[in-house]
């Protein structure tokens, strides 16, 4: 459509007849219009909740349109921001309780807004089941992300693996900039404590995820 319109423009005099011949707006104009919509077209029970719509630097970089690729510089910046975001639990212990982690992994609720109300939960669910295969034989699991079945069996449960796993859950973009995986710790969806339980769920040999 846009191209056809340009051809008309090239026909010179005709362009005068179709003065202001419609075409796609430039990216800056699009951005301005769309951001105005974002600021006007959503409601929340508290102004603080509306801030969820505001993008941080990394989210801006990661919102590539269509097939546009991340540049090396952009990827490096996202990784840098991600690394800086990672906080560790006060206890210093990165491996928590796998049973709690199991529950969290199968809990997809928490923090949703509906009918002018924020979903009331003591804590948010870990959302894992939505996108990842978990224990062997589980049916009701998604596949947007890679399978986590046997995660600990494949990697062992060394301190280095525990740290890597913790960091990947806390802020996946430290390793895979702009991947689909939410930065669960960095966005404050989960607490550092909750992340340690999920680390245990993934690594503990007794965890159902590591059952053969």
């Amino acid at each position, binding site marked *: 459509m846009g191209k056809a319109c340009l051809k008309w423009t090239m026909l010179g005099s005709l362009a005068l007849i179709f003065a202001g011949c419609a075409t796609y707006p430039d990216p800056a104009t699009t951005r301005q219009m769309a951001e105005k919509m974002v600021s006007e077209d959503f409601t929340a029970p508290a102004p603080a909740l509306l801030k969820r719509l505001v993008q941080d630097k990394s989210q801006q970089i990661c919102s590539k349109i269509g097939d546009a690729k991340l540049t090396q510089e952009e990827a490096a910046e996202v990784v840098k921001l991600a690394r800086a975001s990672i906080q560790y639990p006060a206890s210093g212990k990165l491996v928590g309780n796998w049973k709690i982690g199991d529950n969290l992994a199968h*809990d997809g609720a928490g923090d949703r807004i*509906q*009918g*002018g109300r924020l979903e009331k939960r003591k804590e948010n*669910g870990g959302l894992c089941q939505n996108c990842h295969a978990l224990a062997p034989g589980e*049916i*009701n699991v998604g596949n947007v992300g890679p399978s986590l079945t046997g995660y600990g069996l494949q990697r062992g449960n060394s301190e280095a693996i525990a740290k890597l796993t913790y960091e990947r859950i806390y802020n996946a973009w430290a390793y895979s900039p702009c991947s689909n995986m939410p930065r669960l710790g960095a966005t404050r969806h989960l607490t550092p404590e909750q992340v340690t339980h999920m680390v245990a769920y993934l690594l503990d040999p007794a965890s159902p995820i590591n059952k053969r």
Partner: protein
Amino acid sequence: MNIARRTFLKLTGGAGALAAACAAGLVSSGRVLAANWNKAGFESKALADVMKSLGANGAIESKDIIITAPDIAENGAVVPVAITSKLPNTQQISIVAEKNPFPLAATFDVSGGGEGYVSARIKMGQTSDVWAVVKADGKYFTARKEVKVTVGGCG
């Protein structure tokens, strides 16, 4: 809208809610009973009692009964079940979800030009065998198929 969501929760919020839904008591005042409604059967809590109420004790398994239902039902509140009986002179077909609190879901009396085929949708509280109980030529036959119930809206 929050009403929508909450109502929904109570409709199909999870296995627990569904089980409760299926566990509906049959004690209610002022209801009009259809004349031939199999009260004893619909109030039975065990498969054996359902069979008894149908007069189907000692029914034998038959390969001439085909149950069409999903291996996995996405939504326990709407599980499609179709039953085809190739038994000659099929007179009655019942659908029984064994692990429902009240297993007997429906009974269909076939007569005249009715074929040995019915299709319906039932509520299931949990993964269970679904039984077809068929009366043909005065005798009772059964078939069964397991339907796994996942709650699509889980989490």
